[in-house]
């Protein structure tokens, strides 16, 4: 067993027992990255020297607690002081933040070693990581397939053994969908649970930072570190924060689980439905009460999302105008032309498309018909969930309608690509916590099980995810990357 194969909690044990040093761990991880990265292409920026220097400092101190000596990666939309933060966009290709996002600062303060910044769809707009302005990331389970998106680099790096955990962001499924495609654990906390300060905004009422890891326990540990009120994000919530690792107990007897019939309808591959139904049987076997429910407005979540998210994006991305940071067209003769040509050059196709759509939906004469209507539908979607959660502790469903698709397969047709998010978007619309854990394989490709909880009840998600993990072995499967078995 190589060090890079170990999970976060295993690495902590190794350091604690002095079986390996932080330097050895970082060397092993960097060795792994150098070996597979030309195939996976998960990293936009890699800081080998910085990571080694930090590891040496860590070893010099000689005692280890928290994340001391533990490597990790950040989706390249999370600001990292002194390390380029590009959002996978030409617009910010050379942007170096002078401050850390709150989540980055918290991991740093816990002693974690930031190895690099991970690829994404430009400004987190996409479901395949093919919309990165730099290069696509590949799925470790099949290099001809996408890792999902938008946090595809984070999911692929964790699955490929390049890093034990990573942070991503989820606006409509951008953590859960890639976690499902890559066979790892992905948690999107409740809106307001984790600070968004220093995370480049896509759709501010939906965005949330979360965790990728190989095991549920690691996810709980990292959530402990990043969760909590931050005075720099007024939407982060002042709430008593439980110790999320206290939910890691293999006991779900009497837990009331609902599965929504709308998440098992046409459009979802039969084999995916069957795999998820097997998981439901497993939960019954473990003592949970499993019943069918209805979330009647589910089919309206995606169209409402494709008004709300672009509308917010069009406002958020107005800041990229060539004045304070990023690209600038120096040929332009007046300021309006400078804004327009800079933005034309700096943004990719999908980003421009969403800005156009959002601007249209908010423009005079259309606001009521589109944006306001979408907000009303958002209320109906939230009401559906509230009704179910009056009687049940947890909702279980597939994460995605299919397994990972091939690179290039869904380029050029935005609507087909948007359908990937049909099972994850409602959760963001209602601000709820959601998680994807591995629950099987179809023709060698991972299938994800989505768990959805009450607002601020990540604890029940972690408990149910842990119980499933303890009684199955899907999380132990490792991809064979082009002949190299990890």
């Amino acid at each position, binding site marked *: 067993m190589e060090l890079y194969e170990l999970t976060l909690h295993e690495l902590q044990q190794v350091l604690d027992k002095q079986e390996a040093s932080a330097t050895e761990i970082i060397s092993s991880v960097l060795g792994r990255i150098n070996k597979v990265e030309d195939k996976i292409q998960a990293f936009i920026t890699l800081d080998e020297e910085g990571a080694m220097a930090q590891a040496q400092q860590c070893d010099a101190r000689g005692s280890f607690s928290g994340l001391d000596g533990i490597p990790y990666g950040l989706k390249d939309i999370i600001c990292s002081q002194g390390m380029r933060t590009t959002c996978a966009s030409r617009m910010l290709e050379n942007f170096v933040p002078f401050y850390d996002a709150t989540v980055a600062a918290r991991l740093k303060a816990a002693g974690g070693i930031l190895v690099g910044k991970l690829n994404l769809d430009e400004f987190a707009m996409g479901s395949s990581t093919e919309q990165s302005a730099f290069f696509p990331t590949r799925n470790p389970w099949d290099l001809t397939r996408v890792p999902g998106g938008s946090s595809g680099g984070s999911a692929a790096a964790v699955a490929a053994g390049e890093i034990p955990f990573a942070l991503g962001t989820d606006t409509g499924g951008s953590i859960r969908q890639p976690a499902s495609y890559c066979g790892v654990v992905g948690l999107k906390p409740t809106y307001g649970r984790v600070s968004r300060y220093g995370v480049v905004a896509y759709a501010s009422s939906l965005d949330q930072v979360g965790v990728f890891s190989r095991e549920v326990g690691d996810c709980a540990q990292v959530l402990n570190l990043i969760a909590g009120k931050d005075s720099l994000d007024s939407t982060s919530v002042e709430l008593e924060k439980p110790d999320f690792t206290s939910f890691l107990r293999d006991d779900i007897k009497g837990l009331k689980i609902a599965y929504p019939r709308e998440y098992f309808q046409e459009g979802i591959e039969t084999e995916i439905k069957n795999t998820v139904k097997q998981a439901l049987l497993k939960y019954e076997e473990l003592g949970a009460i499993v019943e069918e429910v209805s979330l009647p407005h589910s089919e309206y979540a995606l169209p409402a999302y494709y008004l709300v998210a672009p509308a917010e994006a069009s406002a958020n991305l107005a800041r990229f105008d060539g004045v304070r940071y990023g690209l600038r067209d120096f040929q332009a003769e007046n300021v309006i032309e400078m804004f327009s040509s800079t933005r034309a050059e700096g943004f990719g196709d999908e980003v421009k498309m969403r800005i156009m759509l959002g601007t249209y939906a908010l423009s005079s004469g259309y606001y009521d018909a589109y944006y306001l209507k979408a907000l*009303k539908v958002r209320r109906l979607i939230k009401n559906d969930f509230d009704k179910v959660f009056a009687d049940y502790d947890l909702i279980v469903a597939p994460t995605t309608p299919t397994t990972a698709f091939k690179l290039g397969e869904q380029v050029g047709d935005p609507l087909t690509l948007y359908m990937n998010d049909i099972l994850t978007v409602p959760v963001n619309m209602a601000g709820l916590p959601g998680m994807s854990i591995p629950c099987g394989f179809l023709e060698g490709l991972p299938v994800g099980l989505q768990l959805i909880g009450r607002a601020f009840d990540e604890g029940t998600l972690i408990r149910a995810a842990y119980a499933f993990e303890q009684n199955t072995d899907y999380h132990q499967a490792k991809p064979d990357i082009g002949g190299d078995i990890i």
Partner: protein
Amino acid sequence: MTISFEEVEHVALLARLQLKEKEKEKYAEHMGSILQYVDKLQQLDTEGVEPLDHILPVFNIFREDQVKPAPKREEILANAPLVEAGQYKVPKII
């Protein structure tokens, strides 16, 4: 639902996006198909439904006005494409 060329140009101007002729065609088509899809929402009767602006209860958050360390001007300007005399420099506005 179709979007005219003129509408695309108008929205592009509002969004400060310079589009090539080919892009205008593509966006007209793509926006049209997405708007047709989102028109599904019109099937729902939302009479009397309160729009959901914020998923969490929102209220004003007050604090004492205290002087705290702020980022240095040079740090903030370091990422700017063009700076003069400690300020952002832009092309002629009027």
